[in-house]
């Protein structure tokens, strides 16, 4: 399959090319947004066309009986294992956002009539492991997560690959954080000379009085983009944090929209970006406060450190506000390591090279330490240091 054939096609042609029926509303939405290109605002800095132009093998999705495992294991888009008693099944997605900004959100749903539905009942903590084993393939799947009202769920997300090459992964979540519940999602993805590229397109609905935490730790090289839309109901809160450490010729980052719909909703979004080599980091983030969202509090900030003269950061924090009764702030800085801090460390006998490492790790730690579970915090710190030290021996 070559996804670029979907470019500039009408509804009938798209239905024909994708061999789909009875999903005209989704297909229309996809057609109206169009296949992403460098002219698309949300993909402008990501070279998506190169990924879509390749010829991929399509995989046949045959649901499997789940084996029991401590974690949820998804192999090439098929869920194969999960914790005993956890409700995980394949089902058509019932609630698709019809106002998502990302065309690949719709393409993902069109290509995945069955989604992996995970019901996070009770106060639960679970790990989701995504594994990719197929080369030259298009791996497409979607996951639906539900939390139970008044309950608190935590999900740790990891990615592994076998020896693959030239694969494209399109996946994403539709998360429903129920009233008075909380969902903590911590994603860690190290990619270094990976055999796959990724576009992850998510939607998070945060109901009344609910809290969502979405922390992503994207490390290494290669190409991956996460597109995130969050909708906040009355007194709902989202805490989003994104750490990027990129090297070589990586192009990775986050494109997001946080939409305040309910009164007294609050959002905090922090991006910390460390860019080395020829890497390009992306933080293109909009906070929209609608007429209905009086007394909103919104805070957004991006900081980037460039470790190499060829590294480049695209930071576009944006506010779109339709009311007066709110508190909102946003900002962005891009620069080198702090000279005063570097000198302070050197003045105590620490070498310039070591002082730089300490400061970079410290910059990352300020976000890593927001992961409250010490075991996972250490795991992320270790992964970060491994990737960073590999390029700075």
């Amino acid at each position, binding site marked *: 399959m070559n996804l670029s054939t979907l470019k500039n096609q009408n509804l009938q042609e798209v239905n024909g090319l994708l061999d789909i029926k009875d999903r005209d509303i989704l297909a229309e939405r996809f057609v109206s947004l169009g296949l992403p290109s460098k002219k698309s605002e949300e993909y402008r800095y990501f070279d998506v066309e190169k990924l879509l132009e390749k010829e991929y093998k399509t995989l046949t999705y045959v649901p499997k009986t789940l084996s029991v495992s401590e974690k949820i294991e998804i192999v090439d888009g098929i869920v194969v294992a999960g914790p005993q008693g956890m409700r995980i099944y394949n089902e058509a997605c019932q609630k698709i956002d019809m106002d998502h900004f990302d065309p690949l959100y719709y393409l993902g749903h069109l290509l995945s009539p069955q989604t992996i539905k995970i019901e996070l009942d009770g106060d639960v903590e679970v790990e989701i492991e995504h594994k990719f084993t197929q080369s030259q393939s298009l791996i497409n799947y979607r996951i639906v997560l539900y939390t139970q009202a008044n309950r608190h769920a935590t999900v740790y997300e990891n990615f592994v690959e076998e020896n693959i090459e030239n694969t494209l992964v399109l996946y994403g979540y539709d998360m429903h954080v129920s009233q008075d519940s909380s969902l903590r999602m911590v994603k860690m993805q190290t990619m270094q000379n990976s055999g796959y590229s990724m576009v992850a397109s998510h939607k998070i609905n945060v109901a009344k009085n609910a809290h969502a935490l979405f922390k992503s730790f994207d490390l290494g090289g290669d190409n991956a983009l996460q597109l995130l839309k969050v909708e906040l109901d009355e007194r709902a809160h989202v805490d989003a944090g994104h750490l990027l450490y990129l090297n070589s010729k990586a192009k990775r980052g986050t494109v997001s929209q946080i939409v305040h719909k309910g009164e007294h909703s609050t959002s905090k979004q922090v991006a910390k970006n460390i860019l080395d080599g020829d890497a390009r980091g992306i933080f293109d983030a909009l906070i929209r406060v609608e007429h209905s969202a009086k007394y909103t509090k919104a805070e957004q900030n991006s900081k980037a450190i460039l470790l190499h003269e060829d590294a480049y950061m695209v930071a576009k924090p944006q506010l779109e506000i339709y009311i007066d009764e709110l508190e909102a702030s946003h900002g962005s800085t891009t620069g080198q390591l702090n000279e005063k*801090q570097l000198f302070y460390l*050197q*003045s*105590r006998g620490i070498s310039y090279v070591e002082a730089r490492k*300490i*400061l970079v790790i410290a910059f*990352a*730690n300020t976000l890593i330490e927001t992961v409250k579970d010490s075991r996972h915090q250490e795991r992320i710190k270790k992964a970060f240091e491994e990737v960073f030290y590999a390029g700075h021996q």
Partner: protein
Amino acid sequence: MSIMKIENLQAKIGDKQILKGLNLELEPGKVHAIMGPNGAGKSTLSKALVGHYDIEMLGGDITYKGKNINEMEAEERALEGIFLSFQHPVEIPGVNNAYFLRTALNAKRKHEGKEELNAAEFLRLMKSHLEMLGMKSDMISRSLNEGFSGGEKKRNEILQMLILEPEVIILDEIDSGLDIDALRAVSEGINKMKDGKRSFLVITHYSRILDYIEPDYIHVLKDGKVIKTAGPELVPYLEEHGYDGIEEE
């Protein structure tokens, strides 16, 4: 013989020449106080001695233990035993205070051909100093200087000094922003370091600190030069008459 000799030191920051032929010798085991009006060049001198990036040397020589250190990098000077207690210690979020100090100490030990200390050995060493300085034990696990009060920052500077055991100690306005208890604790830490070999260069605006750290010499710095050197008896004179009445010797 002096441990550090500064001859005809000329230096600028940005476009402005601040040190204009400064001469000074630090004797082993002695406390040298540098006093002078605002803008005389006191902090510039301290920066020049530790190789700060702000400083451009225009001429002169700094000799430390018989070796010219004009071209020496800041970290090398520190490893050789030159220590500056900063007037405004910088905050570094995310760098654990204990981790930082152990890294610094082990860099020095490695430089001296000694074995590095492990975490447990280091913590024992650190805790032995904390109590004396009146520092809370949680300060070792906090980020370096982040959210520290003025007094806590200065105590932390002295903690570093106690652990790194330098040979020339430059204290830049160590008394600024300290209440009387903090001043006493900081002074106690400094006095504890006196061993008859180390040299201290105490840079200060006011004589208050000199009630706690008894100086051997007072050097008056004015317009980028040391214009007078005398014993501690000069302090009350300066208190009464200020710097205007001091003429270059």
